[in-house]
């Protein structure tokens, strides 16, 4: 390797990458060109080859063919991820590589702890950590254990760690997928800060608005092939979608001619206490709602407003202190467990597909049929594999799930197809009330439209569908009525037809201090 870096030319140049997996050509002649000091968006549907490209660049996998240059120097395909980091190419994945029981400072300097006479120099480590964090404008205590930090703060620690490794190029894989809009603002601020210091970024995201806000140029991949590269200023969001999908896709506002039926689910006075140790920390205050058969009720609100909390209580997954709910006039509460809820006619597609939804090491078939097995078992004990296969076959066709076969692990499917399997799992239960939490998070544009279509079809068949989404256009396109949550209360229920994005925003944010916020406190 040359020691002095070439000060002109691109920071990263990828030429003609090919990568073959058994049965799939993941990359087929991909190129990528990132200029010094720019934020470059890497766009494509799920399965377009972004993840494979990232893995090859980070050193986790090797390309079958093709070459890459970082800062003018050829990258050795045999490099390990550690070697790539030493060269200044740092990748930040969606799942962070932090040690939860160690402090921020220890995480920042893991494996590179400053030493004094062979022992760790704690004083210097803390001081350096504090300096790096404040340079990035972050108010995080370096002595705090990482497990106490919010997701957004953990991400900042990852970025700070990249800085301590004097990164030249940081690759970020969907950094905002799990962040609230306020946290996204903070992240964007940090990215601008990085740019000013000459760090280049490759930014993978499904949120195209974000590309317009933060990125300078973009590369689009489709089906493992390079489609185009361009400047963000010359492209509209619609253009990007067209390039990614190869066709026009937008949120189709569904027709309103199917009248909703009578009230199916009635929720009255749900209250919970704040549970500081738990995962869902927002307390609900006297939440009441009605849901009608055949309608889509949207739950809008900021992250932490209580949408998911209510869904989990309805489904019996969390406890509530007070309140009742009636399903078809029958009092249900308190629902003791998800098993009771499923029995009563509820189905839930949970918020976190990988952690709460999928059995990643098990087959599509097993994932799809698990809760339905009782219906297709002899004497409720022995699984009738013939009927099971018919069930799977039916839903794979009806939903257009793309995969090598029902016996492959669900973990090998793209996010969109995984989500379809989870939807099929719920549909197979013939629920009365179907709750879907962030149904299109992290899935590509084409699959989004298909998921929307499915949810509308469910409603058209008389199912009461509750959709929780952080994307307002999605809630507005899907819902008949929208319940707006704010700080554990329902701030209003409005007909989707008569509302606007700004009206919803007002309902979501009334009573909140005006933006911008300072860096999030712990």
């Amino acid at each position: 390797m040359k020691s002095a870096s070439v000060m002109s030319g691109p920071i990263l140049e990828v030429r003609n990458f090919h990568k073959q997996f058994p049965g799939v050509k993941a990359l087929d002649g991909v190129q990528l060109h990132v200029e010094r000091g720019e934020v470059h968006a890497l766009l494509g549907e799920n399965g377009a080859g972004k993840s494979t490209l990232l893995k090859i660049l980070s050193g986790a996998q090797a390309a079958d063919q093709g070459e890459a240059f970082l800062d003018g120097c050829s990258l050795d395909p045999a490099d390990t991820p550690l070697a790539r980091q030493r060269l200044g190419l740092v990748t930040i994945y969606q799942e962070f590589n932090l040690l939860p029981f160690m402090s921020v400072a220890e995480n920042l300097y893991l494996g590179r702890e400053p030493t004094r006479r062979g022992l760790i120099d704690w004083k210097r480590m803390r001081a350096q950590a504090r300096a790096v964090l404040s340079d990035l404008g972050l108010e995080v205590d370096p002595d705090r254990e990482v497990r106490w930090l919010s997701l957004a703060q953990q991400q900042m620690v990852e970025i700070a760690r990249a800085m301590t490794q004097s990164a030249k190029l940081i690759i970020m894989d969907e950094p905002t997928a799990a962040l609230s809009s306020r946290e996204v603002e903070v992240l964007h601020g940090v990215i601008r800060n990085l740019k000013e210091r000459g760090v280049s970024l490759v930014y993978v995201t499904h949120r195209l608005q974000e590309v317009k806000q933060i990125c300078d140029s973009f590369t689009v991949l489709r089906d493992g092939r390079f489609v185009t590269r361009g400047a963000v200023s010359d492209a509209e969001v619609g253009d990007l979608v067209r390039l990614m999908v190869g066709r026009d896709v937008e949120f189709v506002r569904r027709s309103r001619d199917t009248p909703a039926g009578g009230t199916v689910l009635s929720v009255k006075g749900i209250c919970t206490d704040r549970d500081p140790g738990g995962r869902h920390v927002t307390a609900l205050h006297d939440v009441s709602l009605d849901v009608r058969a055949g309608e889509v009720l949207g739950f809008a609100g900021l992250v932490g407003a209580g949408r998911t909390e209510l869904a989990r209580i309805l489904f019996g997954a969390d406890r509530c202190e007070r309140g009742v709910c009636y399903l078809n006039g029958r009092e249900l509460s308190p629902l003791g467990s998800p098993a009771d809820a499923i029995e009563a006619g509820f189905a839930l597609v949970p918020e976190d597909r990988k952690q709460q939804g999928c059995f990643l090491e098990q087959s599509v078939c097993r994932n799809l049929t698990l809760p339905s097995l009782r219906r297709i078992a002899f004497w409720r004990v022995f699984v009738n594999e013939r009927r099971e296969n018919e069930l799977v076959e039916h839903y794979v066709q009806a939903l257009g799930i793309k995969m090598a076969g029902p016996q492959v692990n669900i973990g090998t499917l793209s996010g969109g197809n995984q989500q379809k399997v989870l939807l099929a799992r719920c549909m197979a239960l013939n629920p009365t009330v179907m709750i879907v939490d962030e149904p299109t998070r992290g899935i590509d544009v084409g699959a989004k439209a298909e998921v929307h279509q499915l949810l509308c079809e469910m409603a058209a068949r008389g199912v009461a569908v509750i959709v929780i989404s952080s994307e307002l256009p999605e809630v507005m396109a899907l819902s008949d009525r929208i319940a707006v949550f704010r700080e554990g209360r329902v701030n209003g229920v409005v007909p989707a037809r008569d509302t606007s994005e700004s009206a919803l925003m007002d309902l979501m944010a009334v009573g909140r201090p005006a933006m911008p916020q300072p860096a999030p406190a712990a």
Partner: protein
Amino acid sequence: MKSFDAIAWLRKFGTTLFLALLMVFFACQNERFISLRNLTNILTEGSIYGIIAVGMTFVIMTAGVDLSVGSLLAFAGMAGALVAGLIGVDVPFSWIAAVTTAVFAGAAAGYLQGRAVTLLGIPPFIVTLGGMTIWRGATLILHDGAPISGFDRGFRWWGTGTIAHVPVPVALFALVAATGYIVQRYTRYGRHIYAVGGNPEAARLNGLNVSGVLTSVYVIVGVLSGLAGFLQSARLGAAEATAGTGYELRVIASVVIGGASLSGGRGGIGGTIVGALLIGVLTNGLVIMHVSSYWQQVVIGLIIVAAVAFDTFAKSRR
């Protein structure tokens, strides 16, 4: 598009292939190994811990482990012999009291351990590590550390008799293994075990009774340990306080060599049976080759590590 993937094939059938090679090797070294009498011996010996290994497969598939099975075997065997002794160990059909007591003692101990895991949230490793010394101590207390012997022929038949030339313990092992296989492969409960082991949170959200499933696998392994304890006393003609010492390692090794993952969600009865046979053949073959028992332990340990190392290697190579 389907080409032959040697490593995938080896991952699936490698243990069986290794078992076959090992048998050929021992047979070439000493023809006594391949005698019917010796093979029967291997099977009978292997059946005792093989029966427990079937239950252990379920436990390990839920990402748990049970270290107490060896002590539980002794405890249940001793409790059974003690109750049989109240009737009179030489009384015909005293074995009915013995086997009932042993199985119930195993079930009760398994239930307690399962509840400690699910209700108190103590890791299975710790619960059953405690159980391992608790049940061993309880065995010593039961009969002051002395063995109980002098069983009648009906009792001994369970350990030494044959059904159509098949030793009774082997027949029982076959029965238990076949039942285990059917449960794992064809029942909802089997699916539930995989689901709970693969992702407990997702399992709960799919309406599964996660703590029920978890408790049940410890009860199952307890029942099977109890049965094995009864068979062991019938085979040896005595219930001893030191019975089953070190069995937990053989049992866990059988399951792991059979391809189960200690992090749950993966494994199967078929693999476990091969694993149990492999350990039986290896122990016996090494004895016949006059390898010292010190070295036997080293070899078995190496093979456990090698089996898991190969599996990890094959997995990473995707």
